[in-house]
């Protein structure tokens, strides 16, 4: 079948290097992938067209790019299913500088992976044979170690788009792969040092839970879910003195007691009531809210059936917490 691709190209050696769009029509097998089509362009039409690709079976992680606006592996997407208004639109992955055509610079991606010290760090002595661990724990970890470092999640991360210092979904999922490993950290498998490091700014608490990384990940790694699990681990390990942890605590405390969110007190409880400089930073937002009639009520009343909400909490967390 014939397919038309609209490809975003870039030649850094051109007289005036500017990205531009180019259309190509190629003939591929009926069940061919987007990658098959891109290879056809390169082999039969224009050898100067550059992209990374290798395994053709979603395991090497080379061919992540944006297809119709969302990151994915070109070798995993069947071309006929990707045709929108007659064309397949292909762009380089986002949040990384373009080197040439679909090739992006992964340096920042790997720098963040390096930041999390990406290797097992057991604190106790090594056993002579293998570590004894449950199959469940290994299967759980394999759900994360199946990450192929393709960069699709980083490409479409909405936080990294505005804050390049954010560790990002790939590095945080990689970090979770160690913190959740019973072999890493102390004798109970708790990786305290890692968790402490990850609670710092640009770490686990900076994710805004937009779900993009979960949606685009071609391997089902669900990075955002791992970030949420990191938060639970950090709080369980006692790292509660952070904006994120306090925010979580204040949020759930408010809902549990009154049945709904006390927005007015959420901010001071999250950043710390004595943290005047941080509180001052919220003043413009507060004034805007006030002038637009969006000021939350000063007296926060319980909803009518707040007791039922509390019962829900009891059911999930157990009554012993009172």
């Amino acid at each position, binding site marked *: 079948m014939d397919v038309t691709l609209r490809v975003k190209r870039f030649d850094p050696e051109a007289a005036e290097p500017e990205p531009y769009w180019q259309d190509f029509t190629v003939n591929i097998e009926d*069940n061919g992938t987007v990658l098959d089509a891109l290879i056809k362009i390169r082999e039969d039409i224009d050898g100067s067209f550059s992209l990374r690709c290798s395994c053709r079976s979603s395991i090497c992680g080379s061919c992540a790019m944006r297809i119709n606006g969302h990151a994915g592996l070109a070798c995993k997407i069947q071309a006929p299913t990707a045709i929108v208004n007659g064309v397949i639109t292909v762009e380089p992955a986002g949040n990384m500088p373009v080197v040439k055509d679909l090739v992006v610079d992964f340096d920042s991606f790997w720098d963040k992976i390096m930041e999390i010290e990406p290797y097992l760090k057991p604190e106790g002595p090594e056993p002579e044979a293998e570590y004894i661990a449950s199959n469940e724990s290994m299967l759980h970890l394999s759900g994360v170690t199946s990450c192929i470092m393709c960069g699709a999640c980083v490409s479409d991360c909405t936080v990294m788009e505005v804050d390049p210092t954010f560790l990002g979904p790939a590095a945080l999922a990689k970090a979770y792969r160690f913190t959740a490993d019973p072999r890493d950290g102390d004798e109970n498998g708790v990786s305290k040092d890692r968790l402490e490091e990850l609670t710092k700014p640009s770490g686990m608490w900076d994710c805004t839970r937009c779900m993009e990384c979960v949606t685009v990940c071609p391997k089902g790694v669900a990075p955002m879910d791992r970030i949420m699990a990191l938060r639970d681990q950090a709080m369980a390990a006692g790292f509660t003195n952070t904006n994120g942890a306090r925010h979580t605590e204040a949020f759930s405390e408010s809902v549990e007691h009154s049945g709904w969110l006390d927005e007015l007190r959420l901010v001071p409880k999250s950043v710390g009531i004595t943290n005047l400089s941080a509180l001052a930073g919220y003043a413009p937002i507060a004034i805007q809210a006030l002038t637009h009639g969006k000021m939350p009520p000063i007296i926060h009343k319980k909803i009518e059936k707040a007791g039922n909400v509390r019962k829900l909490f009891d059911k999930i967390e157990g009554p012993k917490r009172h």
Partner: protein
Amino acid sequence: MLEHDVLVIGAGLAGMRAAIAARSGGANTAIISKVHPVRSHSNAAQGGINAALTDRGDDWEEHAYDTVKGSDYLGDQDAIEVMCKAAGQALIDMEHFGVTFNRDDEGKLGTRAFGGQRRARTFFVGDFTGQAMLHVMFEQLIKSGVRRYEEWFVSSLIIEDGQVCGVMALEIRTGQIYAIRAKTVIFCTGGFGRVFEPSTNALICTGDGTALAYNAGAELMDMEMVQYHPTTLAGSGVLISEAARGEGAYLLDKDGNRFMEKYAPNMMELASRDVVSRAEQTEINAGNGVDGCVYLDCRHLGEALIMEKLSQIREIGIDLVGCDMITDTIPIRPGMHYAMGGIRTNIDGQTNLPGVYAAGECACVSVHGGNRLGANSLLDTIVFGERSGNHAAEAARSIDYVEFNVDQAVRNEEKRIQELLDRPQNGDRIAAVRLGMGDTMNRNLAVYRNEEGMQETLADLNELEKRYETVPVDNKGKVFNTDLVFALELGFMLDFATPIAMSALDRKDSRGAQARTDYPDRDDENWMKHLVIKKGEVGPELSYAPVTVTRWTPEERKY
């Protein structure tokens, strides 16, 4: 000046293992790879890694016997003993590095059955064992502090007065040419699957190191032994793991019969790969297939098992042929998969060139002989990667850097590459020549071979080599010029395609992966020997080397 005691070329499992070993041996070590290490093709090993653990009642000698038998008595038994003895510790090392191997009920490492072995001794991570191991090896590489040249392409090997002194390399990102000085060089460049079309191998598997070593005078061995894997997808040739059959999948003909009964009544679908591939091809040739394929049937394994242990190949089936193995059979056929042959080495990875080593698929130690057992390739990479790294680091202590004119070498390489770029735009396309090569190899050097076909391929290759002399490179730029890389890779592949066909033509018996319709029997008296091929003045020169037999004398092979 870039200079290293040990320079490893290729960053798959063998390369990274070698580099880590050399670094911990105190050597100034670097690793150079045309792709980022985690993009390497070790990723694609799905099923697992073999090891005989004594605390499971297994025994390395049983593993060695299965490997010898699997090799059709062409493997060197001293090398096989080394590998099988080392397997247990090598596996435990990987577990300690952090690989998330599946466990048994007691929390110890769990096993699955694999082809050609009488005991389940294949340790695994779902059906992505290679990827899981590769990423962990990269973690250890980072920890070790080895210098990494990522996305650098080695274009030449420099040898002065018989001693290796370094390599010339192209930094793909900038197009700059560099000389890197080295006391020792370890080739870990993987297989050469792309000489064939189709192949399960990734597009990067172009045997660059095989060609670099061969052109510098290294001996290649057993090049005719090319494994066709029994379960590859039609069209793309992508691999469906032997793990499927290890977990109990059937092979069916067009009428739903388990035809392996006829060929291997005891082991059935889990006979060794050469046996299963021949059975499939025989059935397909007899008209018992559909569109050149037979069927892999996993439906009776159940959704739970498939989701826990075979989920990635299930995805591949859905993505590439639209078949869900939970509910559908999958059309498969024998497809080019693995090179048993390669750069001839001893058990420490040394080649006949001083200072030059090889390990992993590009090497021929030989532990696989005529046919590799499934899950012995991952083992081969880490055992002989480590041994090569250890030996090279030790050897480098007593070697001085060989002086050579670096500026001149860079200028010469730049000129050579500029000439390639300056070719007129009127020859064949690179892809057309590559496809021509892949077609003729797959037509005449596949599961069944004969003299006439192989002569045809030799003539085809001769013609293709001439066409290659004029292929133009479209891209004239410096930055990420993959077109230039493809042109260089194609040249490499053509350098050793003829030696493959010549070796196959010379071997006048059927053994392991080589099944000749004109010489259908194994002939131990005349052909239980290695074929060695070396670049001579006028062309490839063939010679023979004895197979090392320690304790297992040849028997008839039945599964």
